[in-house]
C-alpha cells in the first residue's frame, strides 16, 4: 500500500469532516456522518491486515487529538483510535465473505464498523465520567445519537465509494488473491 497517497487522502477526508460535519448534523446533536469511517473501512477491505489496523489507529488518533473537551481543553487520546481499530478488525474478519467492489458493501460495513467504534468510544467516556468531571458527558444520549449517526455514515460511505473505488490503483493495495497460485501478475 502506498502510505503517502493514503495519508494525503486521510488528511483531505479529515479536513472535509472538520469543515462540514457540524453543518450536516441533525439539529445541534452528534447525529452526523463520519467521512473517516468509510475510508477506514475501504482500506480494511483492500489492504493487508497490518496496514489496515495501523490506518484505523492513526486516523482514530488524529480524531482524538482534534477533539478537545471541557474547560481544561483536555485531549483524551485513545477512544476513537481503539474504536476505529475495532471497526477495522471487524471488516478484516468479514471481508472474505463480501463483494468488496460493491458500493453497498462499503455502505453496510461503514454502518456496522461505525456502530462498533462508537459503542467503544461511548463506553470509554462513560467510564471516565465516573471518576473525572473534566467535561460533561451523557452516555445514553450520546449512544443514541451516535447510533443514528452511524446510519448517516452509511450514506456518506455510499457516496464516498464512488470516489474511492476508482482510486484503488492509486493506493497500490496488495491483492491477496494474486499469490493464491504462487504467481504474481
Amino acid at each position, binding site marked *: 500500500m502506498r502510505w503517502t497517497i493514503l495519508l494525503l487522502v486521510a488528511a483531505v477526508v479529515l479536513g472535509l469532516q472538520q469543515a462540514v460535519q457540524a453543518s450536516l448534523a441533525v439539529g445541534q446533536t452528534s447525529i452526523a456522518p463520519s467521512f473517516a469511517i468509510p475510508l477506514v473501512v475501504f482500506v480494511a477491505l483492500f489492504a493487508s491486515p497490518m496496514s489496515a489496523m495501523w490506518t484505523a489507529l492513526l486516523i482514530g488518533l488524529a480524531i482524538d487529538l482534534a477533539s478537545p473537551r471541557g474547560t*481544561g481543553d483536555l485531549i483524551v487520546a485513545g477512544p476513537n483510535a481503539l474504536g476505529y481499530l475495532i471497526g477495522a478488525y471487524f471488516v478484516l474478519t468479514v471481508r472474505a465473505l463480501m463483494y468488496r467492489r460493491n458500493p453497498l458493501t462499503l455502505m453496510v460495513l461503514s454502518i456496522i464498523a461505525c456502530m462498533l467504534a462508537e459503542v467503544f468510544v461511548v463506553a470509554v467516556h462513560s467510564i471516565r465520567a465516573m471518576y*473525572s468531571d473534566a467535561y460533561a458527558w451523557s452516555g445514553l444520549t450520546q449512544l443514541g445519537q451516535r447510533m443514528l449517526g452511524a446510519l448517516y455514515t452509511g450514506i456518506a460511505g455510499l457516496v464516498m465509494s464512488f470516489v474511492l473505488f476508482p482510486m484503488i490503483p492509486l493506493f497500490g493495495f496488495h491483492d491477496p488473491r494474486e499469490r493464491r497460485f504462487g504467481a504474481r501478475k
Partner: protein
Amino acid sequence: MPRSRWINPRIGLTAAIAALGVLSFAPPGAAGWVGAFRGPVRTVLAPIAAPFALLLGLVLREESIAASGPAQEALTQRDGYLREVNQLRAENDDLRRVIADLQHGLDLNPNIPVRQFTAAVIGSSLDLSSMMLSVRAGTREGVEPSASVAVVRGVHLVGRVVGSPSPRTCSVLPFTDRSAGSINGVVMLDATRFGPACRLEPQGDGTLTGRLRSEAVLLPTGASSAAIDSASGGGDAQAGVKPGMVVRLADDSWPQSAQMLELGVVESVETPAQDIRIRTLVVRPKYRVERVSEVTLRVPAVRSSNGAQP
C-alpha cells in the same frame, strides 16, 4: 537480527494499542502532555478544512446574508448601542455604589480596560460531543484563559477562552457546551429594563434551561434585577417574562467586561405543575455559536505603569 525481531509492525501495533488503552483511562493530570500533539494535527487540518468551509459558506448562504446589508448593519449597531446603554446604566449604578463604598473607606479595584479584535475560527472539534472552537489568536495578541471572551456580531456571547493558549491559537469553549457549566443571566423586559435574574444550564442541543429567580438579586454590574412578582406586573403572569425577550449575561464568574453581553432570547416560559411558584425558561442563542466562522475576542488590555493603555 535481534533488532528486526523486536521492532516490527506487529509488535509496534501491540505497543500502540497498550499505550492508547492506558491513555484512554488516564486521569487528566497524567495525560495532559498529550495536548502537545494537538498543534501539529491542527496545523495539518486547518488549511485543508478552510477551502471546504469556504465552499460550504457559499452553498449555505444563510449566515453570510444575515451578516451583510444595511438593515443588518443597522440592527447590529442598534444591538451594540443597547448593550452600551445597559452597561452604562449599570456602571452608573455601580459608580453610585463605589462612591458609597469609598465613603466607607473601602479599597476597590479599578475597571479593567478591554481590547477587541476579530479572529478567524480555524477549526472545531472533530467529535461533535464537544463544541470547542480553535481560534487564530493567541498569547501574542494578549489572549488570556478565562479573562478573554469571544463574541459574534459585537454583542452576542460565544464563549470564553479555556486551556493554555499557544502564541498563535487558542480554544474557545462555547457557553452552550454542557462542559461550560451553568451561567447566570438577567431577562430584559424591554431594551433597558431589567427583569428577573435566572440561572441557566446548557443542554447540549444549543439551548439553555433554568429557573427564574423569584427574588431581586444584585447583578455583577451593580444594578439589581427585578423580583419575579414585580416583573409580572403585580401577579399578572402575562405581563412578565415572555418568549422573545432578550437574556443578558450577569455572572460574577465571567469577566466584568463581558457583563450584559447577549446570551439569547427566551424561547419558552413554563410553570411546572408540581410547584406554581417556580417558573422555568428555555433560552436559545440568536446564532449557532459553534458554527461561527469568525469571532470578536475581547481581551484584557494591559495598563502601563502610568495607567495609560498601550
